[in-house]
């Protein structure tokens, strides 16, 4: 199955709507201007890419509003809603949250739009999507990563119409954060220039509607030919100076697209304008294309660097350049740096284009590359033919009781495992000196990763790719960064906290720990983050990326957790945290799988989603035949909806076995489903579920598996087998 672009949309500093944006691309004028979106107390006025005259409708944060504008354009004229939504964002509602924190607003009802996951949910609701809703945060590689995931969904037959969006708004966190890292050019970004001194932070949203087909449908604009993901596994912010990870991503994308280096007509560079990025990218391009690369340019001199949106904006640029037969100019560059070894195009060039390559590289060493081509080009279907299941090579979890064996022992004793994972359990796997800069979430994640790897033992080798899920991200770093910023009148804050606040930082650290240079994806889909991470792995896994490390964690933060995750109220004064990690190998034969991420759905029309879930699992009889128990995640904040969904599930299936709500015993946090999944695997191996979770002392599974259900705002089903 192939993926065709049938709709595009954009909201950017260079225009909102395709026609305005196209004019800006051709005019080749920098549109980076001094920040005016919010006042800066300390007087630091820097040039940014700001969407002019944009007022979000009441109550909706800027990122969500920008995303909606782009999405609506892409969906225009499409008679059916998309059956999947994939969104890349790093900011989520943080611009709004910053104001709430500064004013010490504590009411959780005001923080409903904070999480990155809420952007995906908002778009799904607006578009009427009933299928998988995935939210990805891989820093500046996000916008391209979502395109690669969307392509994976279509090839595997999991979706026929995918809305893929990248969106980020300006906010204080990134505005001051990048400046504290000394990565911002006070004169405005000058990509590839000899005198370049940094990036210009920007905002934007761009959307592509992708449709499945064996050949181009009528009205197809372009085809998404292929994609490649890799990780530098080098440093949390500095790219590998040799550009090896970037080169790997480009090679993978080309191979995936079935396109040779000689067939590429234009490369849209990541080209942020930082000395390090442009240098590493130059080396990577020469490594892949030799001394005679195709025409190339960075377009960030026009609109700045809109972070997660950049890959999506540049995918739109790829489409427009092919449709309108022109190569955009490398605006902002007066004197190309001869040390780069690549010469950017300094003026727009009209010529027919067929194949465009687009690069996006982000902190954490995340690299993503996309190949877009004209719709009439000869295409072939590459990649996976269907969603993969997994064999578990090693596992680990953290709960209020400790690591896996401590948690299992506590459950057998009949003890509650809620609460924050004990420090001793978290720290025992970590090298104190190497982790001195790490706060709670990365410590949880690394402890889990190392434990799972250890559990794999000698029979498994180190993971080559990482899929990380987190509902709320690194709360300590985010809070500490903003608190210090506000306390000092916006003059000072911690660069370490800014870097640590990025949702994909833990995944980057795990990659460095194990030298995992394959795909590296961070998923931030609130209560479904773990399920979505595994679902992505199921669509993207490739031989050279295995074994896979799939993990998920959330931290308990005294101030932010109660405000941002209303479900924490269900635990009373106790705040819980922890997570789970799995070392996995994909399997061809679904019957050999220990774990199968069967279903993700979005409840748009009442309980219809449960009927779809039952169907996806093979029907009532098959469910009762396969599973001896059901472990359900009922997030407290949406318990009424979730309980209704559960009743519907039981009515539809007549499931006779044990049904347990694991959050009552494991705690209320977004990625507790990962903890539950790891425990579920062990329950299945032992043939029974401990009585503290429900039922009686016996609770035999009768040799059958466990069904892991996630209910509430989104619905998920995962099969766990022996």
């Amino acid at each position, binding site marked *: 199955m192939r993926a065709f672009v049938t709709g595009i949309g954009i909201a950017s500093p260079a225009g909102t709507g395709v026609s305005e944006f196209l004019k800006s691309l051709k005019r080749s004028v920098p549109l980076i201007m001094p920040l005016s979106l919010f006042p800066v107390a300390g007087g630091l006025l820097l040039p940014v890419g700001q969407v002019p005259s944009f007022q979000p409708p009441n109550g909706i944060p800027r990122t969500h509003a920008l995303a909606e504008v782009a999405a609506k354009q892409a969906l225009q004229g499409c008679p059916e809603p998309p059956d999947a939504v994939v969104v890349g964002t790093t900011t989520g509602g943080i611009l709004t949250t910053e104001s709430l924190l500064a004013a010490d607003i504590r009411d959780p009802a005001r923080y409903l739009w904070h999480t990155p996951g809420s952007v995906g949910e908002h778009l799904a609701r607006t578009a009427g999507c009933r299928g998988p809703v995935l939210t990805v945060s891989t820093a500046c590689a996000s916008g391209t990563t979502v395109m690669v995931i969307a392509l994976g969904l279509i090839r595997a037959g999991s979706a026929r119409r995918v809305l893929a969006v990248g969106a980020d708004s300006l906010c204080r966190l990134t505005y001051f954060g990048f400046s*504290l*890292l*000394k990565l911002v050019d006070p004169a405005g970004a000058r990509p590839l220039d000899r005198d370049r001194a940094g990036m210009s932070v920007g905002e934007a949203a761009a959307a592509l509607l992708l449709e499945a087909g064996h050949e181009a449908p009528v009205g197809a604009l372009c085809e998404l030919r292929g994609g490649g993901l890799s990780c530098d596994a080098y*440093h*949390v*912010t*500095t790219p590998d100076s040799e550009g090896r990870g970037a080169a790997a991503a480009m090679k993978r994308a080309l191979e995936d697209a079935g396109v040779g280096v000689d067939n590429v007509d234009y490369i849209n560079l990541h080209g942020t304008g930082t000395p390090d990025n442009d240098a590493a990218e130059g080396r990577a391009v020469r490594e892949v294309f030799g001394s005679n690369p195709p025409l190339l340019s960075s377009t960030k001199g026009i609109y700045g660097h809109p972070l997660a949106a950049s890959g999506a904006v540049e995918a739109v640029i790829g489409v427009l350049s092919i449709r309108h037969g022109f190569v955009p100019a490398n605006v902002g560059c007066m004197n190309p740096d001869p040390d780069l070894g690549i010469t950017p195009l300094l003026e727009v060039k009209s010529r027919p284009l067929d194949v465009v390559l687009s690069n996006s590289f982000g902190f954490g060493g995340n690299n993503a590359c996309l190949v877009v081509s004209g719709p009439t080009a000869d295409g072939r279907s590459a990649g996976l033919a269907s969603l993969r299941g997994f064999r578990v090579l090693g596992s680990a979890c953290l709960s209020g009781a400790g690591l896996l064996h401590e948690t299992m022992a506590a459950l057998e004793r009949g003890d509650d495992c809620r609460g924050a994972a004990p420090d001793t359990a978290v720290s025992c796997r970590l090298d*104190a*000196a190497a982790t*001195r*800069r790490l706060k709670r979430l990365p410590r949880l994640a690394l402890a889990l990763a190392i434990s799972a790897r250890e559990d794999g033992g000698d029979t498994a080798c180190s993971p080559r790719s990482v899929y990380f899920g987190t509902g709320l991200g690194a709360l300590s770093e985010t809070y500490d960064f903003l608190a210090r910023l506000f306390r*000092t009148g916006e*003059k*000072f*804050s*911690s*660069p*370490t906290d800014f*870097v640590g606040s990025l949702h994909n930082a833990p995944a980057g650290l795990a990659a460095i720990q194990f030298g995992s240079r394959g795909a590296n994806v961070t998923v931030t889909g609130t209560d479904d983050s773990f399920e979505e991470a595994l679902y992505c792995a199921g669509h993207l896994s490739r031989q050279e990326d295995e074994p896979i490390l799939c993990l998920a964690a959330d931290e308990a933060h005294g101030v932010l957790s109660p405000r941002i995750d209303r479900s924490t109220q269900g635990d009373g004064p106790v705040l819980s945290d922890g997570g789970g990690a799995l070392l996995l190998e994909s399997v061809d034969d679904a019957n050999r799988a220990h774990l199968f991420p069967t279903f993700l759905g979005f409840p748009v029309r009442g309980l219809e989603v449960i009927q779809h879930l039952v169907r996806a699992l093979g029907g009532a009889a098959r469910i009762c035949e396969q599973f001896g128990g059901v472990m359900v995640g009922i997030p407290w904040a949406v318990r009424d909806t979730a309980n209704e969904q559960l009743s519907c599930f039981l009515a539809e299936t007549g499931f006779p076995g044990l049904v347990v709500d694991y959050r009552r015993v494991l705690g209320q946090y977004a990625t507790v489903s990962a903890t539950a999944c790891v425990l579920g695997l062990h329950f299945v191996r032992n043939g029974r579920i401990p009585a503290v979770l429900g039922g009686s002392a016996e609770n035999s599974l009768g040799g059958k598996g466990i069904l892991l259900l996630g209910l509430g705002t989104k619905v998920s089903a995962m099969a766990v087998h022996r």
Partner: protein
Amino acid sequence: MELIDELKVKIIETLNLTDVDPARLTEDSSFFENGLNLDSIDILELAVMIEETYGVSIENRELGEKMFVTLGTLARYIAENRL
């Protein structure tokens, strides 16, 4: 307290260098490989601490490279430029 002794404590605190004993640091202690073994983010963190505490700002990379060689070079620069 002498500036350099104050700096030792502040550096250890800012970067959470819990295994470093301030008594073992000297004027000639290096920030990099054969000394404190700091990376680029650590240096940026120290730059913020120095500006906030002493009012000395590090405008650019070149200046940073001159200041962050040994504890002694850093202490001297701060002493000469502090507010």
